[in-house]
């Protein structure tokens, strides 16, 4: 498939545990974005990468959240010491370059923290 893929599609974890969410962007897309979406709300910006570097991480809620994109392709969103309030659908998107280009979204990872 040529679209954005995310794994796992569902993740259930216990409060206090560590989780990693993976995003594989469209081939050739240099910009990659992470959003999270709660029920009935629009996507909430977390962070975006242009290439390997985080260009804007102003949306990360606190230092329990961290994301990497070491080779400029696949990205991993890492959440430490998960809390029940972290439960949401985590969406990844990619675009050719950042700024003024359409972002293509993946199917999301539904995270449930018990």
């Amino acid at each position: 498939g040529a679209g954005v893929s995310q794994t796992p599609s569902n993740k259930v974890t216990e409060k206090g545990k560590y989780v990693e969410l993976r995003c594989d962007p469209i081939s050739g897309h240099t910009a990659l974005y992470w959003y999270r979406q709660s029920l009935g709300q629009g996507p909430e910006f977390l962070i975006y990468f242009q290439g390997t570097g985080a260009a804007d991480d102003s949306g990360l809620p606190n230092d329990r959240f961290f994301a990497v994109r070491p080779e400029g392709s696949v990205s991993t969103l890492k959440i430490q010491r998960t809390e029940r309030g972290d439960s949401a659908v985590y969406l990844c998107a990619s675009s050719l370059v950042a700024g003024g280009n359409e972002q293509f979204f993946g199917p999301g990872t539904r995270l449930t923290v018990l």
Partner: protein
Amino acid sequence: QQPVQSPQAVILREGEDAVINCSSSKALYSVHWYRQKHGEAPVFLMILLKGGEQKGHEKISASFNEKKQQSSLYLTASQLSYSGTYFCGTGGGSGNTGKLIFGQGTTLQVKP
């Protein structure tokens, strides 16, 4: 600051028209429109850029008033497939940022 969308919800009959509005309190470089069906990812519809450039699907039309920091999405001759939640995402005034701030969404239901 999150853009404000109006109306919150719309119910149409097939073939009717609708307008969805998106208003921001900040200067905008771009406005992006997406449609999301329940349990699915948002799907790109259109992007409008400062200066007048537009990219999007042929059957979708939209406007961007840079001065008023407002955008409107026009859905004409609606079809059942148009049902879903519509989001506008706004890009900041610098032009080279990928960060989008999304509105709270407008739910559209098209009935036969």
